[in-house]
């Protein structure tokens, strides 16, 4: 009897458990943890977003794995968790960015965009007949010369970070970032920190083809995706440093 009652609290997302929890939202967070990791790093020179896009089969076209998205000229978003759910949020963010242009003729502020997205996510934790988004996002952008990095989670809470990981192995990657992040990183060092963080939990070595990286530079305020060759060069630079350390 007791067991049945407890179970009922995760049937609908609008129902609190007696100890004040929303089980469906917590389950959605679990869904995010099952996704491959994404990492964001903020440096003075810009924001770096890195995603792991390993596929289940060598026959899958790598470009069809969507985890890193351009949202506006000055904003990129990396996702973890359910790709289909993330796509809805990405499209919401893209539209919201253009509404800002139409309404005010201004590029949307990264914080304003993040909060518009999280307000949308929050609605899916309180309305009947829906389920929460099983995705977390890293929103990186530069507005008014300021690089900003935000994280959203399935509850709709926005958090700002200097460097952060979402998805599988989050806590280990976060430990690596906490140990190695410094306020005066260059953009290249930021890219390498993100790659190092990704590598820290992988058994095999990093492959450029299995990663996607995007940067928004403070100077240009433009989002740019790194070419595979650029990623490979950064990975090589990382390896060299490791070898030097060993010597």
């Amino acid at each position, binding site marked *: 009897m007791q067991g049945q009652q407890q179970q009922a609290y995760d049937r609908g997302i609008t129902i609190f458990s007696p100890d004040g929890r929303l089980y469906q939202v917590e389950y959605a967070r679990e869904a995010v943890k099952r996704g491959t990791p994404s990492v964001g790093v903020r440096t003075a020179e810009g924001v770096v977003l890195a995603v792991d896009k390993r596929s289940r089969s060598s026959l899958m076209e790598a470009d069809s794995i969507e985890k890193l998205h351009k949202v506006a000229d000055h904003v990129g978003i990396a996702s973890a968790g359910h790709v289909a759910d993330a796509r809805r949020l990405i499209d919401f963010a893209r539209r919201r960015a253009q*509404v800002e242009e*139409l*309404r005010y*003729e*201004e590029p949307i502020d990264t914080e*304003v965009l993040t909060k518009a997205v999280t307000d*949308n996510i929050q609605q899916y934790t309180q309305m009947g007949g829906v389920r929460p988004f099983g995705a977390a996002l890293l929103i990186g952008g530069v507005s008014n010369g300021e690089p900003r990095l935000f994280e959203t989670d399935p509850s709709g809470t926005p958090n700002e970070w200097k460097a952060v990981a979402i998805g599988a192995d989050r806590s280990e990657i976060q430990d690596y970032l906490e140990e190695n992040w410094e306020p005066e990183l260059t953009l290249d060092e930021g890219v390498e920190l993100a790659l190092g963080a990704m590598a820290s939990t992988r058994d095999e070595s990093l492959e450029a083809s299995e990663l996607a990286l995007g940067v928004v530079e403070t100077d240009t305020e433009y989002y740019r995706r790194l070419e595979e060759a650029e990623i490979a060069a950064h990975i090589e630079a990382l390896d060299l440093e490791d070898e030097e350390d060993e010597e």
Partner: protein
Amino acid sequence: MNVEDPYEPELGSLPEESAGEGPESMETGTTSIGVTTEDSVVIATDRRASLGGRVVSNKNVTKVEQVHDRAALTMVGSVGGAQSFIRTIRSEAKLYEARRGTPMSINALATLASNFLRGGPFFMINPILGGVDDSGPHVYSIDPMGGLSEDEYVVTGSGMQFAMGVLEQEYESDLSHEEGIEIATKAVQSAIERDTASGNGVTIAEVTTEGVEIHSHEDIAEVL
């Protein structure tokens, strides 16, 4: 998708009916002037309201109102349309600032005003928007269909030709704030002399980084 309509206010809604139709609604006729100086904006208007161009219905109208910490908008054309429009713009600016912690730029304010005129009913107004933000002082004239034009100085209203003539002669870039007040007032004065729908003194709005200060003078000599 729950993305707000960029052409509609978030608060309330634009009226269904066009404002200011029919000969008996109050109109400002008006001379309205916006001038940028080196670090401020000066807006000057006359103080007369008229009915059907024949009766002076009010001799003590303040035709410029603050809509933002550092911006003001003039009333030109239908008084009802202008008042409603000003209330809407003011609320939107406050909402924007409350949410984001930073004030709207003057260009954002002008774009929003243009969108509301373009997308909503016909307001029958032709206002001037002036304000100061981080990028400096700006004045825009906004036509009844939402057309925006920014310049160093702008004039709208029935007395515009007379006032424009004065500004063409007197205006220079990088005027001091005091020179800006003088030139704008002289331009209103000339229009009052020759335009029957403008008169009864001058109202000045001084917009600086400190804020907006509005004062009216029945006797123009008080300013000059």
